[in-house]
């Protein structure tokens, strides 16, 4: 890729930056509306639905060469009859077979099943068949099973997918789900296998079959090609790999003007018999752009925003030809240039070709409506989306004030309320237990080491402070590795195989453990400070009165201590209430809560839940709902702080 970019850059005297970016989809949807998106994105076809609905990608023109691509590839990039991407590669999953263990390719799926289970029982392999099933069983890998039984995601009617026909609850899909459950219970499919483990097992010859894709071949030393495991690749018998296509998501990310512009641009269609031109970009010194167009017969025209006029012998007037570099600088103006003609407008499709395009949806400024020129249906704005009388909508939508609906959603919609309530409760439990555990350990240490005879106090204190000194983002990431089920140090140390970070209950324990590690030094420091502040005479007096050590501690030391540290404990509670780093960097809120309509996990606290709602939501970020939740958090934290004010008497100090 860098090679292509460098070559293009060198030929055209521009700088092309190639970047690898994680979370491309989410990042693109954040960056594009602010004008910071990239010019070209490489991504999978199943992003197209979401990205086009949100208006962050524009249709491309394949220049009449659709035939040169695989039908399935072009199909995948087509939404509402518009092609949104140039296919560069097609990949599918297939059956990898260890040829030492299974010399002959199985002809049927039942044969795979039988062979895998037999080898597993004989102990020849740890797992007969490996398929990535953790942390989430991806529909991508399960698609063959789904379709084998006649299930489907969306129905396919005529020109494209019919999104009103969802086949996930069709009889075939239910049958497929029952079959997968059967395979899990008989041990054919191990639900704990992650992509990493799949790679390890098959790569080391500990699995007879793997279902995976070409990315498994080369993987930084762990690829099947690299480990030297003898293998062969065949189609999954007798199933056909079939790529999932989703067109889900309704976005309201843009302003209304941006949305209207996108609606019009996206609805521009090129009729099959449209005239095609060779184009040469032109501009005046003042930067007005125009096109020199040559039609199929070789006649030349000058196309400006005023219309098309014949330009015999390349008569250019004030315009001059642009170099490629200059064209790229003016690329936005050039692509926005519409040369009005009778049928519609001539527009650039690449920098060298132009076609006549006809808008399907037209915005009427006076009426504030969008009309479909072909069918005559009129769409009116309803809550940030153009909607027709029978409820059909035009995407993308735009941001609009919707009153208190977002707050109501947190309490009324069952699919939202369920996870919200769980997250809410866990936030309190997490903050409370974090304070209690860290305080208990910190206090125990402070008491134990508050003894003048302990000469090595300073040394111990240096040890204890290490977790506190380490930046907490590193702490969370490091513990994430230590608690990893397959490779983590904790499971190695205790010779266990516990799902520390993937079990709904264990993950909460893990988080509290990590937070104990992170937080006890602070409690140790403040209680040590507070202990030294307690007058020795008081304890002396208690002893004289015959109090035992424990009694003196309970009745004298502890109450006095509490007076000075209570405000700090409340502060610590408020801090943990919003302790984003530990949750997000350790678990990202996972494991997910089943059936939740919003991205919510068992370990999510309100702040990480809000972050995921706003910046990681699929099918468009839900800024409105996320903002509503942050206001709710504020109310709760404010209540806690108000309570703590009464302890610190901070207000009285204002003199």
């Amino acid at each position, binding site marked *: 890729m860098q090679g292509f970019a460098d070559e293009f850059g060198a030929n055209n005297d521009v700088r092309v930056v190639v970047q690898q970016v994680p979370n491309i989809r989410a990042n693109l949807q954040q960056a594009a509306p602010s004008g910071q998106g990239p010019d070209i994105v490489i991504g999978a076809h199943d992003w197209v639905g979401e990205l086009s609905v949100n208006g962050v990608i524009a249709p491309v023109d394949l220049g009449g060469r659709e035939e040169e691509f695989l039908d399935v590839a072009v199909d995948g990039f087509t939404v509402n009859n518009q092609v949104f991407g140039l296919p560069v590669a097609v990949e599918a999953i297939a059956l990898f077979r260890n040829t030492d263990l299974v010399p002959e390719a199985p002809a049927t799926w039942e044969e795979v099943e039988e062979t895998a289970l037999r080898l597993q029982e004989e102990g020849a392999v740890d797992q007969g068949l490996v398929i990535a099933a953790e942390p989430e069983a991806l529909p991508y890998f399960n698609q063959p099973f789904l379709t084998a039984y006649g299930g489907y995601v969306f129905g396919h009617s005529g020109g494209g997918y019919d999104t009103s026909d969802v086949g996930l609850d069709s009889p075939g899909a239910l049958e497929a789900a029952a079959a997968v459950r059967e395979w899990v219970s008989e041990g054919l499919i191990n639900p704990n296998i992650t992509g990493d483990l799949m790679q390890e097992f098959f790569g080391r010859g500990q699995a007879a079959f793997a279902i995976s894709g070409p990315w498994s071949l080369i993987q930084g030393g762990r690829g099947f090609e690299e480990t030297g495991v003898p293998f062969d690749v065949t189609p999954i018998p007798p199933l056909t790999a079939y790529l999932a296509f989703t067109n889900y998501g309704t976005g309201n990310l843009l302003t209304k003007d941006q949305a209207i512009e996108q609606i019009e641009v996206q609805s521009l269609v090129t009729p099959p018999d449209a005239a095609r031109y060779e184009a040469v970009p032109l501009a005046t010194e003042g930067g007005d752009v125009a096109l020199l167009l040559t039609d199929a017969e070789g006649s030349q025209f000058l196309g400006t925003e005023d219309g098309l006029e014949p330009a015999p012998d390349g008569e250019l007037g004030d315009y001059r030809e642009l170099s490629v570099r200059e064209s790229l600088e003016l690329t936005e103006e050039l692509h926005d240039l519409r040369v009005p003609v009778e049928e519609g407008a001539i527009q650039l499709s690449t920098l060298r070709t132009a076609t006549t395009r006809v808008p399907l949806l037209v915005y009427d400024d006076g009426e504030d409506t969008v009309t479909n020129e072909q069918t005559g249906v009129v769409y009116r704005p309803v809550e940030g989306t153009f909607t027709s009388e029978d409820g059909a909508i035009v995407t993308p939508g735009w941001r609009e004030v919707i009153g208190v609906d977002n707050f109501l959603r947190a309490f009324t919609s069952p699919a939202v309320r369920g996870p919200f309530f769980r997250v809410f409760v866990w936030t309190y439990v997490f903050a409370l237990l974090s304070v209690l555990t860290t305080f208990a350990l910190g206090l125990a240490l402070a008491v134990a080491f508050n003894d003048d*005879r302990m000469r090595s106090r300073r040394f111990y204190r240096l040890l204890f402070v290490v977790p506190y000194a380490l930046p907490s983002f590193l702490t969370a990431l490091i513990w994430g590795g230590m608690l990893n089920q397959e490779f983590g140090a904790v499971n190695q140390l205790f010779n266990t195989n516990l799902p520390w970070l993937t079990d709904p209950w264990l993950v909460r324990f893990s988080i509290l453990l990590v937070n104990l590690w992170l937080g006890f030094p602070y409690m140790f420091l403040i209680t040590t400070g507070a202990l030294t502040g307690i007058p020795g005479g008081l304890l002396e007096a208690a002893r004289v009165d015959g109090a035992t050590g424990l009694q003196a501690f309970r009745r004298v030391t502890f109450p006095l201590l509490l007076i000075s540290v209570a405000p700090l404990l409340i502060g610590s509670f408020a801090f943990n209430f919003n302790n984003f780093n530990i949750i997000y960097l350790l678990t990202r809120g996972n494991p997910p809560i089943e059936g939740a309509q919003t991205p919510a996990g068992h370990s999510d606290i309100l702040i990480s839940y809000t*972050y995921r709602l706003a910046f990681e939501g699929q099918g468009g970020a839900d800024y409105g709902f996320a903002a509503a939740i942050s206001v709710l958090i504020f109310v709760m934290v404010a209540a806690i*702080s108000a309570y703590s004010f009464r302890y610190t008497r901070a207000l009285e100090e204002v003199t």
Partner: protein
Amino acid sequence: MATAAEAPTGSTDGLRPSAPPRPNGRRQRMETRRWLRELGWRHLLGIVVGVFALYPVVWVLSAAVNPESSISSAQGLIPANPTLNNFRELLAGQLSDGTRVPFLRWLWNSMLVSGTAALGTVFLCALAAYPFSRMRFKGRRTGLLTLLLVQMFPQLLAMIALYLLMVSLSGIFPAVGLGTRTGLLFVYLGGALGLNAWLIKGFFDTLPKDLDESARVDGATHAQIFFRIILPLAAPVLAVIGLLAFIATINDFLIASILLRDEQDFTLAVGLSRFIQDQYGQRWGPFAAGALMGGLPVVALFMYLQRYLVSGLTAGAVKG
């Protein structure tokens, strides 16, 4: 509140009923049984907690020098053939499989943004604290209370507003808009003012007013009093506030991850977490090396300043 955790004080031990404090030198002569009962358990507790505290660090150290970069091969704490390859790869900016990692750039970004934010916070807070401490004016009480109230709204909660604000700002002043380190710096500066200004004001209050009054009699202006008298006297508390602001900023993942776009601009927190995300299996070694190189300067700074910290902590600041 007394804060001198260092200073040895008298018999403050709540668990020892009868024995008067003993001079340290006589421990050797103490009977073993009594030593075990009175001091041994303390050492035992210290060792157990010490191992708990240090184990992850030692483990990271071991992974960093392990020749295998895969986490699954990090068996045993002492690798057979220790190597510095992971460090070399990170410093060179490229892993053995060809992945580019601008680690030094991330570290520099973190130091630059956090360092500037810490200095800026201290200076701005001191500026804000001075009039609140030394002058009497209409709205002073309201101003102080507003500072406290604003502080109650954690900056994290404003993430969506901050993000949308920066998006709009990009259209007007791209230099401080979305995806710029300058923009991030401004957000940090805005978020750190409330409580810190409050703490510094409290310290200024303890400095005798006679000092600036006599200076004023001699003809000093407010600016001269602030820069020549108050700031030098407040240096210790300013150092603590600066350190706390530095640590809070370098730890921030959330806001940096929202506002920074370009890999070259990432801070260490954003860069490393993206680097290791879902790749524990393959990138553990380089990550461990990066964690050590990124964490050590902060740990060293912290250890050096920790004795000042105790007073800062008990005054109500919480590490972020």
